[in-house]
């Protein structure tokens, strides 16, 4: 029995279907991310879990009980708001204690719980401050402590790190994961940042136009996306459209418009259409001056494309190249800078061979 079961939930605003028939199970102790571009309905879905919106169709079951008509203040669920929504007239301590007072806890218990929460998010010494006198990172911590103080069965986080700068965001992501593991709570996070979703979550649900397109682990989402759209939304990808010419020994030969004949691994579930797209992640595309290393060729057939380097971006850990193939199409490749001094770095206008194995490719039908 999952902690939370969402069954064919629909939410309309006028004629616009913000959430369009979403079904999803979330298990206790899970860190789940709802990922999607802005306006895809992920925040509306989260607000339905918190009780600020009611579903027009479908059911939301928490512990097997339908909570569609349960008001926000009666749900064992707490939410951390995107702009934190700290009460400006209350101190840090009173913000954290707010929900505890409503729960009718004794004063000594409240003090103990507040002290525990303050220690948990490392806010010692700031208890008497007003939110106005806190930095962005501190506000975020107060909001987190406040939403955890009531020990909810499920914590909902609406873009919790969007307002923080990159370094702080990364360290906070790890703290969130740490916290979730230590407390054994169920976290549901909404984010438009795919890197953030992949970092923190155990499972990710990708939403687009109100629909849940794919629910998968970060690795599965990246290496085996269900559709072109997801492949492009999660990370970078090279896509080549083509027709299946032949299939033998779990290998498909696909005639593409821009990259000639490509040999790719046949997906386990098979392919029904003949018009497909071949997706290759840039880091799977290797470059060399001459051709693939002999031992790579020995093990399996190799896809080999020639072209000219038109763009080199040095990013520190990685260097990304754009290779203009002889067909005129652009192939992207990214290579890890594993050596400090790279005598083999490629230059603009250099002619190179780009190669990848059939297993590096993915066949997408939509």
């Amino acid at each position, binding site marked *: 029995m999952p902690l939370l079961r969402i069954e064919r939930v629909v939410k309309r605003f006028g004629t616009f279907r913000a959430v369009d028939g979403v079904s999803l199970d979330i298990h206790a102790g899970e860190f789940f991310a709802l990922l999607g571009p802005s306006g895809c309905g992920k925040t509306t879905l989260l607000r339905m879990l*918190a*009780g*600020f919106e009611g579903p027009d169709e479908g059911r939301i079951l928490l512990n097997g009980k339908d909570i569609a008509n349960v*008001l*926000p*203040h009666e749900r064992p669920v*707490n*939410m951390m*708001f*995107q*702009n*934190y*929504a*700290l*009460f*400006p*007239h209350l101190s840090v301590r009173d913000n954290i204690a*707010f*929900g505890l007072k*409503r*729960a009718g806890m004794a004063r000594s218990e409240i003090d103990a719980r507040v002290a525990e929460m303050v220690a948990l998010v490392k806010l010692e010494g700031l208890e008497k401050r*007003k*939110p*106005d006198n806190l930095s*962005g990172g501190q*506000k975020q911590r107060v909001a987190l402590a*406040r*939403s955890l103080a*009531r020990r909810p069965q499920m914590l909902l986080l609406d873009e919790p790190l969007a*307002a923080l700068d990159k370094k702080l965001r990364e360290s906070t992501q790890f703290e969130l994961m740490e916290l979730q593991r230590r407390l054994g709570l169920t976290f549901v996070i909404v984010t438009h940042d795919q890197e953030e979703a992949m970092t923190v979550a155990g499972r990710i649900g990708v939403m687009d136009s109100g629909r849940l397109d794919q629910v998968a682990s970060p690795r599965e989402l990246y290496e085996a996306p269900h559709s072109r759209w997801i492949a492009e939304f999660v990370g970078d990808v090279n896509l080549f459209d083509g027709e299946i010419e032949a299939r033998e020994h779990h290998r498909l030969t696909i005639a593409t418009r821009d990259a000639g004949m490509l040999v790719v691994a046949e997906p386990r579930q098979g392919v029904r259409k003949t018009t497909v797209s071949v997706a290759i992640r840039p880091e799977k595309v290797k470059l060399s001056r001459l051709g693939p290393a002999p031992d790579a060729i020995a093990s399996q057939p190799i896809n080999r494309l020639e072209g000219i380097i038109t763009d080199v971006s040095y990013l520190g850990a990685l260097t990304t190249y754009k290779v203009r193939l002889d067909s005129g199409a652009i192939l992207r490749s990214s290579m890890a800078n594993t050596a400090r001094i790279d005598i083999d770095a490629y230059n603009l206008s250099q002619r190179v061979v780009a190669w990848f194995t059939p297993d590096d490719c993915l066949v997408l039908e939509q």
Partner: protein
Amino acid sequence: MNGPRGLSPFNVASLALGLAFLYLPIVILMIYSFNASRLVTVWGGWSLRWYQEFFQDRAMIEAGWMSLRVGATSATIATLLGTLAAVALSRGEGFKGRTLFSGMLYAPLVMPEVITGLSLLLLFVAVNAERGFWTVTIAHTTLTMCFVAVVVQSRLTSLDRSLEEAAMDLGCSPARAFLAVTLPLIAPAIAAGWMLAFTLSLDDLVIASFTTGPGSATLPIRIYSEVRLGVKPEINAICTLVIALISMVIVVASLATKLSGAQRETAAPL
């Protein structure tokens, strides 16, 4: 030139003229309230004689007391109703007639007082209400409610809606969330609205004279009727006291608004 530019002689002159135009009559009135002479226009030396006279003028004291009571009562009712109206209008986003209703609420702001006064008089006559304290109070509530609504609504619209949602999320019923979070945050605006309503009521002559009855004259009515028989220096003393009271209220109200503005910055997201 270094630093911010100061005022040019032309600026100083125009500022002085403008202020003189506004305040010279009032300053003269205040100075003459300390005049010992019986004649308003002849200076007879400093004296508090007319203040003493005022405190012995039973009718005038009663009118002053009446004005204060009407002001406080009508301001309180207007604040209550105006706040409720502002909350309703700033909340009902999906409510179709919202623009119409806000327009209707603000119409009295620009309505000529003679019309408001006359229509209220007709109403009171029609329902056969005995004119006196309560009719003036109701009339002043009608006049001042829209001012309170404007002040409170502007504060409410700048308030982050998610604050109330956060309160509900943390265990407050909607009503509780309003009392625990929204009300403290809009309190300075409500206080400013009350003081605005109070001074408006204290000032009003037109509507009060339409709606009052025998034996319940407010201070402006009383002063006006005295002046028609000739200006006594005592009037100057009363006016000086009223000016002192009103400027005090205005200072407090603007301080409250400032405080509310400071909190507004805090309440804004990030």
